[in-house]
């Protein structure tokens, strides 16, 4: 009993450390990457390659006073940033990074991650509602409608993969893809999925991840050119910092899910040395794509975004689901 409790505590601490370190250094990577794209140096003063920038930013944010605007709902205002960070950290507990590196494997891992992901929308709603700011309110309304719209195609696509794997266990899903690169779920011919629509599923899932994590070109919640800073307009100090880190932690979770569901987890493309490094390589390549997309595309509109989900992605993913179900029945 006590051993299990200790295990859980250690797992959660490691998950928090991993999430925080990732969030901090992804900010650095994003700033350096953006600078590279925009032909400027980026943060390069503090430490080698500016590597001390994230901790210094953290210290600066922590040293600032947390201002609560007059008329704001204090409880929700303080709860919102915590709620932004908490589900992301909890999701890390069940993600398997390799055969042996997993904090707590569950046979319904996917369900748990999606349950926590849904809580992210709530933090945006709380933040916008409690700030007593019209911009924040508009932004949180946008963010919630966006979260609802994109969770549906994301879940349907995930169900497709679950049907192919026959399991909601993330370990099991990876094991089934581990034979070679052609057995990955993204590729249609070998492996479990004899489904020629799998590359499209991958694209749908990736798009939904972008939208779910409020990243450009779907960062309508933030939309700094019209809504100033969106739901975190009134946040300063570590309240803002938590939103910021939560965003990056969510990106890591989304990319982890993409790697596990479609890109074979920790299995090597050539069958050599499977291990956590392959997982991390795929993970950071995906995150680099996130950064690349953000600094290349302008922002979509809110109606364009909702139309894309309700009129294109949901019908497509539903069709994909039926098609996969049919294929499973036939073969």
């Amino acid at each position, binding site marked *: 009993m006590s051993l299990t409790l200790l295990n859980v505590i250690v797992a959660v601490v490691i998950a928090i450390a991993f999430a925080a370190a990732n969030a901090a250094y992804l900010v650095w990577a994003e700033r350096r990457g953006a600078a590279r794209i925009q032909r400027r140096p980026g943060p390069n003063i503090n430490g080698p390659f500016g590597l001390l920038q994230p901790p210094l930013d953290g210290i600066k944010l922590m040293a600032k006073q947390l201002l609560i605007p007059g008329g704001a709902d204090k409880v929700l205002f303080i709860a919102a940033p915590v709620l932004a960070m908490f589900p992301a950290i909890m999701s890390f507990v069940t993600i398997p990074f390799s055969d042996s590196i997993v904090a707590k494997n569950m046979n319904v891992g996917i369900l748990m991650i999606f349950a926590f992901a849904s809580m992210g929308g709530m933090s945006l709603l709380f933040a916008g509602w409690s700030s007593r700011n*019209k911009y924040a309110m508009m932004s949180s309304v946008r963010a919630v409608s966006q979260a609802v719209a994109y969770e549906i195609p994301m879940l349907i696509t995930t169900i497709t993969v679950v049907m192919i794997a026959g399991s909601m266990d993330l370990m099991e899903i990876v094991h089934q893809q581990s034979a070679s690169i052609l057995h990955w779920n993204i590729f249609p011919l070998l492996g479990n999925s004899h489904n020629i629509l799998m590359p499209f599923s991958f694209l749908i899932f990736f798009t939904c991840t972008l939208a779910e994590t409020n990243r450009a070109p779907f960062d309508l919640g933030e*939309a700094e*050119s*019209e809504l*100033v800073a969106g739901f975190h307009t009134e946040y300063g100090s570590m309240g803002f910092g938590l939103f910021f880190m939560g965003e990056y932690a969510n990106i890591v979770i989304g990319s982890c899910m993409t790697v596990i569901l479609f890109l074979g987890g920790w299995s090597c493309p050539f069958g050599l040395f499977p291990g956590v490094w392959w997982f991390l390589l795929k993970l950071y390549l995906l995150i680099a794509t996130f950064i690349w997309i953000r600094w290349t595309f*302008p*922002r979509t*509109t*809110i109606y364009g975004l909702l139309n894309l989900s309700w009129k294109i992605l949901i019908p497509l993913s539903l069709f994909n689901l039926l098609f996969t179900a049919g294929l499973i029945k036939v073969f």
Partner: protein
Amino acid sequence: MSSPIQLQPDETFILNVGPQHPATHGVLRVKMEMNGEYIVDAETVIGYIHRMHEKMGEVKTYPQYLMNLSRMDYLGAMGYSHGHVLVVEKAAGIEVPERAEYIRAIMVELNRVASHLFWFGAFVMDLGGFSPLMYALQDREYILDMMEAVTGSRLTYCYFRFGGLYNDIDDDFISAARRFIPRMRKSLKKYHKLVTGNIIFHKRLEGIAPLTKEMCRKYGASSAVARGSGINFDVRKNEPYSVYPEFDFDVPVYHECDSLARYNVRMEEMEQSLRIIEQGLDKLPDGPIMPKKKPKLIKPPAGDYYQAVETARGSFGIRLVSDGTKTPYRLKLRSPTYSNMHLFDEACRGMMIMDALAFMGSLDLVIPEIDR
């Protein structure tokens, strides 16, 4: 595109956009009556950066007022100075050497390219794409460096004098300008690849904020706002001044009336400005840059004088009423952005806020120039 919805005026709230808001690019305030994300009514409130330039025109002597004009529009300052020196020269009857006029035209066009480059970056930034701004600023930096070497300043130039110029251009400037033209053409191609061809960019601008010809005429709109709505009006062509009749250039006109048309007009104007600079450098005559005979004290005879010029933001008019003393009796500045901006109140009704702010970006507002 947003489909029109039935707006209920009793379910609205007031949203104050500005005076400090990232999209207004300055201290413009827009009072918006909103229904959810839709704008029911909008009212632009100006005057936050009023500096009494017109009154200063009545108090200061003519040479003292030279520097005021470039403080109006900090992005395309040369064009405004050009209008001022032209109207005073017309009033006082000062002859300008040909070389000076050519250099003036080259400078104004270079400044126009710089101004449009900044607009391009800021406009795409309004749409949420940050990177093009950095590319545009790099090209603009080249122009600013080039002009700094000759004029001594980077933004608020005081380069034109009554009758000529403060400083002659040298071989360094000419070779730098010649190098700049192919470089800029290459950049323009890059911008078209990066931005114009982007599907999100197209979707956000096509068919958004249609401005009819009648509306543009009603508000006195000029520059790309009018030319994007099919009005073929450019002061350089319609009321030629300076040495512009000597140059062969086109006035881009688009008939789509939407934000994309306004974008396209400005992008093509950059190319046309490059053509003018190219021809100006080829035809540049030798000679002095200041006239031999020039009155010590500028005292135009009593009368009413007007000069319009095409600046980066549209047709800028300057009316000078002289009573024969060393200060003007009245100096009226007709700033183009003032007219362009007032379109916004009427045109943005029924739009969503993000489209409206993209539309505002396409108007190319420079607030100090509105408030004067």
